[in-house]
């Protein structure tokens, strides 16, 4: 009972501290929120709400009378397709200079200038024409999207041109005369095939490509969960370890304030007093982790995963954070030492554990191995697995390792503290 009294007293003190509240709840949510806001939040359909890129298209393409269609106009139509409406805001301009001025004045992010001989060059075997992209140098993402879209379109015409060339060569070898209408027909047929392929690709199917995922019972995860889940998990882990150390620091704090010695003058065994301090650490961490998970689920729409697996990983985090906190603090003599040591050790171990690179894809495998030198890395691995839809069997190993690490740290730290206050 006294263990609980001491733990509740410590929790009350923690939750009354503005600094502790900021470190426990505000900072992790705020940092993730800043990253979230930087990406413009997430749309209701699960996609990014990227800011619209304003595009001015100057279509100077003037195909000859022998052509029944114009590639320039097709590109304009492609850019104005409904599928791109959430990315691009396309307006047509008549004058190239005006379009460039619009970009210079940041009225547009990108100007696309389609040259006058675009259609002709596309169909002529040795014809060449370049589409000019004039972009705002302060932007990166929007012009990149425009470049990708235009490249996709231009690649299609490159295919048309190759197809036309091959057909012309083969027919020429057989003595068949080739005229412009034949070439147009070939181009149209290729265009239709490419369009169909593109639609199939958009729908996730490709005749020459089969995408397979590892067998799992997991439901597919949303973009919020896969991106912000990992970032938030990194923040939860980082700040949970801070809380573990901060609550353990109260032992030193109470020692300096004289309240620990006073506690020892009461008819309360020392093991109960230290047990109460440690229990406070566990209970505070449980509250912190649960609140952060619930808050981030509501704010960032993160689906944390299967409850049992999540609980296992969260338990590993709580034990590891509390254990490491007690371990670190057991070596320190004063709160003056505690601040810098805690900051340095936890920040470095967090970095080594990979907590600050959760949003970066394709990191070297060696780095992933280095992450696992710290409890942070193992907790993060467990959390990534549950976020990816893993179940209890998937997270069992990292959870057990974090629990084991936490218990070892805790036992060593508690032994040192007991020895100090014996």
């Amino acid at each position, binding site marked *: *009972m*006294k263990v609980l*009294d001491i733990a509740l*007293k410590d929790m*009350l*003190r923690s939750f*009354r*501290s503005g600094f502790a509240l900021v470190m426990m709840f505000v900072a992790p949510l705020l940092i993730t929120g800043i990253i979230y806001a930087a990406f413009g939040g997430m749309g209701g359909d699960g996609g990014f709400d990227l800011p619209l890129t304003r595009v001015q298209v100057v279509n100077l393409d003037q195909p000859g009378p022998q052509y029944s269609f114009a590639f320039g106009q097709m590109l304009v139509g492609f850019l104005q397709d409904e599928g791109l409406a959430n990315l691009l805001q396309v307006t047509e301009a008549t004058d190239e200079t005006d379009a460039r001025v619009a970009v210079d004045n940041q009225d547009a992010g990108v100007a696309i200038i389609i040259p006058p001989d675009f259609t002709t060059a596309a169909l002529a075997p040795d014809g060449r024409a370049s589409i000019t992209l004039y972009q705002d140098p302060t932007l990166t993402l929007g012009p990149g999207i425009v470049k990708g879209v235009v490249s996709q379109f231009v690649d299609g015409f490159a295919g048309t041109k190759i197809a036309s060339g091959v057909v012309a060569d083969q027919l020429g070898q057989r003595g068949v005369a080739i005229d412009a209408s034949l070439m147009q027909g070939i181009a149209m047929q290729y265009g239709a095939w490419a369009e169909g392929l593109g639609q199939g690709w958009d729908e996730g199917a490709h005749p020459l490509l089969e995408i397979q995922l590892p067998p799992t019972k997991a439901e597919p995860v949303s973009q919020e969960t896969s991106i912000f889940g990992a970032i938030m998990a990194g923040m939860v882990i980082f700040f949970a370890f801070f809380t573990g150390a901060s609550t353990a620091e109260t032992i030193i704090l109470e020692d300096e*304030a*004289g*309240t620990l*010695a*006073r*506690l*020892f*003058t*009461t*008819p*309360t*065994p020392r093991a109960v007093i230290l047990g109460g301090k440690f229990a406070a650490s566990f209970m505070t961490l449980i509250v912190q982790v649960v609140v952060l998970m619930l808050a981030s689920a509501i704010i960032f729409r993160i689906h944390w995963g299967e409850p049992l697996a999540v609980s296992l990983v969260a338990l590993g985090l709580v034990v590891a954070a509390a254990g490491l906190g007690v371990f670190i603090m057991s070596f320190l003599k004063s709160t003056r030492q505690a601040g810098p040591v805690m900051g340095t050790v936890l920040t470095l171990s967090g970095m080594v554990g990979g907590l600050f690179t959760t949003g970066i894809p394709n990191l070297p495998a060696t780095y992933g191995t280095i992450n696992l030198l710290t409890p942070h890395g193992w907790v993060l691995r467990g959390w990534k697995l549950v976020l990816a839809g893993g179940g209890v069997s998937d997270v069992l190993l990292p959870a057990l390792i974090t629990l084991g690490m936490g218990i070892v740290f805790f036992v060593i730290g508690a032994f040192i503290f007991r020895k100090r206050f014996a």
Partner: protein
Amino acid sequence: MNNSKAIQIQDLHKNFGDVYAVRGVSFDVRAGEIFSLLGPNGAGKSTIISMLACLLAPTQGDALVMGHSILRQPMAVKAAIGVIPQEIALYEDLSARENLNFWGKMYGLRGAALRQRVDEVLGVIGLTERQKGRVGKFSGGMKRRLNIGIALLHKPQVIIMDEPTVGIDPQTRRNILDNVKELNQQGMTVLYTTHYMEEAQELSDHIAIMDQGKVIAHGTHDELVKIVGELDRIDLTINAESERVLERWQATEGIHQVSAENGALTLLVDDSNVVLPRLFESATETGVRITSVEIQEPNLEAVFLHLTGRALRD
């Protein structure tokens, strides 16, 4: 006060490596009395208090508090005592009531009994009106009162106060001394440590004078003063280095003891009326000017000087 013993200290020793803080201390404290441990800083008073509060284990010896051994029955000892530490030991981010509630629980109080006792203690220490206020915003005096109140929660039989008046203003000091007397009148035995002679003199039924880890004298105030017999004490200041007169005065007839610190000298003499002219005479001869003189009746300060050759303030 009765003749039963609240505290029995038996050949208590404590050393920290090569440092001997307490060296074979023995004394008894009778139930219902105020007993003072008087001595300069480093005399070993706080170490004895720490051992009685079961914070430190003695290197040798034992002590019984209300019949319970500090070695074998520390929990029973802790339940019998209320310790008022020298420094204020409170949770400043909790209210006065929350502090009392928490400490009450640590003494085993629960439920209605706890609530009732907290109310009573708040009344005793005069903080009923401020019970919901954060302790961090209290004045120093209010904190001192709460610091004392915590030790009273479980109605201890013995109150142990470790230099509670160090570094505080005269008004708060007066309040604390009055509180000690009130607690004693309520039947509590008080073990009080101090290095202020006048506090021990005012409060105590019995006094043990400590120096360098030992009890050098023990008894009532009157018994202790008799140690120095009919000697007078003269406190004086001079306008020069004390070395210029020290040797000469130590050899002067009628002077038993001389101690000097920062230009202030304390002398134990047979008869101040006879000795004073000799002091002025030898001061004049050595070119030293006596700038102030105070003659005092024999007191605990004189006893300490007589026994150690040093003033209590040293």
